[in-house]
């Protein structure tokens, strides 16, 4: 999770003019704060067409994901301010916002990375150890897709479906999470599929089953395998 924060030095307002000084020399007059930033996509907005259109990708990344990033930074800031005043009740009251926006940032970051243009890393079938594990735990790749699509269709509201690995047993499974709840604890998220309406509505409207079946054409199995073997 810490990889999602880019560390940026933040100068105290009164010292902005001396920003040209080397960082080390300013150690006593600056504080360093991890600030979440919107990650760049590894492909163009239109690169997942026709499975996910460019307008959806642009809004989803530059607007929705950006809003989670902003919300996360404000929640963290509010917690830090409250902490500085020893106001633990106010800090604790930020928990739902931290979970929602922090989860939104984590989930979307994982999502962009586990997608790729069809034929350029996206689509096809999992290979190697990952495929062996999928066959063992689901019976077949087709069965995994079926189970995931059923889980996606069963989400009552906004949420995500994830292919996960149990960190203890190494077993694979499919889970769903509501709204922006991130996958945490003993489960390692390998592949996430966004089932919020904003992820497909401009192209598929109420026909969400079509989106769920199309998205497999742009799943980046290389990323999923890397997460699995980690």
């Amino acid at each position, binding site marked *: 999770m810490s990889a999602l924060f880019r560390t940026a030095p933040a100068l105290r307002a009164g010292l902005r003019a001396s920003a040209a000084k080397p960082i080390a020399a300013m150690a006593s007059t600056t504080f360093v704060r991890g600030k979440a930033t919107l990650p760049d996509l590894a492909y163009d907005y239109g690169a997942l067409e026709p499975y996910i259109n460019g307008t959806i990708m642009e*809004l989803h990344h530059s*607007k929705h994901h950006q809003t989670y990033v902003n919300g996360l930074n404000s929640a963290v800031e509010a917690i830090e301010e409250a902490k500085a005043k020893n106001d633990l009740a106010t800090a604790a009251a930020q928990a739902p916002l931290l979970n929602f926006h922090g989860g939104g940032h984590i989930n979307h970051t994982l999502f962009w990375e586990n997608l790729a243009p069809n034929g350029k890393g996206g689509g096809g079938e999992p290979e190697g150890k990952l495929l062996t594990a999928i066959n063992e735990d689901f019976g077949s790749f087709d069965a995994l897709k079926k189970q995931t699509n059923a889980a996606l269709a069963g989400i*009552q*509201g906004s949420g995500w479906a994830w292919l996960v690995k149990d960190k203890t047993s190494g077993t694979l499974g499919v889970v769903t999470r509501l709204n*922006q709840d991130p996958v945490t604890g003993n489960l390692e998220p390998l592949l996430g599929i966004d089932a919020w*309406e*904003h992820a497909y509505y*401009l192209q598929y*409207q*109420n026909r969400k089953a079509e989106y769920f079946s199309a998205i497999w054409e742009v799943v980046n199995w290389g990323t999923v395998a890397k997460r699995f073997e980690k």
Partner: protein
Amino acid sequence: MSVGTYSLPALPYAYDALEPSISAQIMELHHSKHHQTYVTNLNNAIKTYASAVSSNDIAGQIALQAAIKFNGGGHINHSLFWENLSPASSPDADPSSAPLLIAEINKVWGSLDGFKAAFTKTLLGLQGSGWGWLVKDAQGLRIVSTKDQDPIVGGEVPIFGVDMWEHAYYLQYLNGKAAYVENIWKVINWKTAETRFQGGAADAFKVLKASI
């Protein structure tokens, strides 16, 4: 056990009647597809539930409760929603059509603008899919939010609701949900709101009775 069948209620206005606040395309999909799907899935769930009851299958009955709540809630919420909207040109869309309700709103929130600001804050604060409602209970008026399709069935009277699922606004407003909320105030049916305010929960749900 014979069970009733729920059906999609007709809209009290044309699909394009709420433009420009809500586009005809949104209204048509929202009513003929989304609401219809809740009705269809509700009917399927209660049919299966009835056979689980008649075969004394308690596990089967419990397993169906989430589907009944979700789809039944979707049917209730949307039915109430359509009725509490009105074309902006109609006198029903003017708050003066709800003198008693507005007087009570003024008492609780200071002014109609104060109420709108509080309601808007609740709507925009929803995390995920859900609804905002003005309700009346024994204590008076309150603003509540509900997640997904959870219905208001705890004895409160729903006065009016606003759908904050993305399907309610996305084709027109995209990620700009604040603009959707701003514009929906122009198409609130205050006449319906006044009627519900003067009645009880059973009155509000009357339109929802199943037909056998």
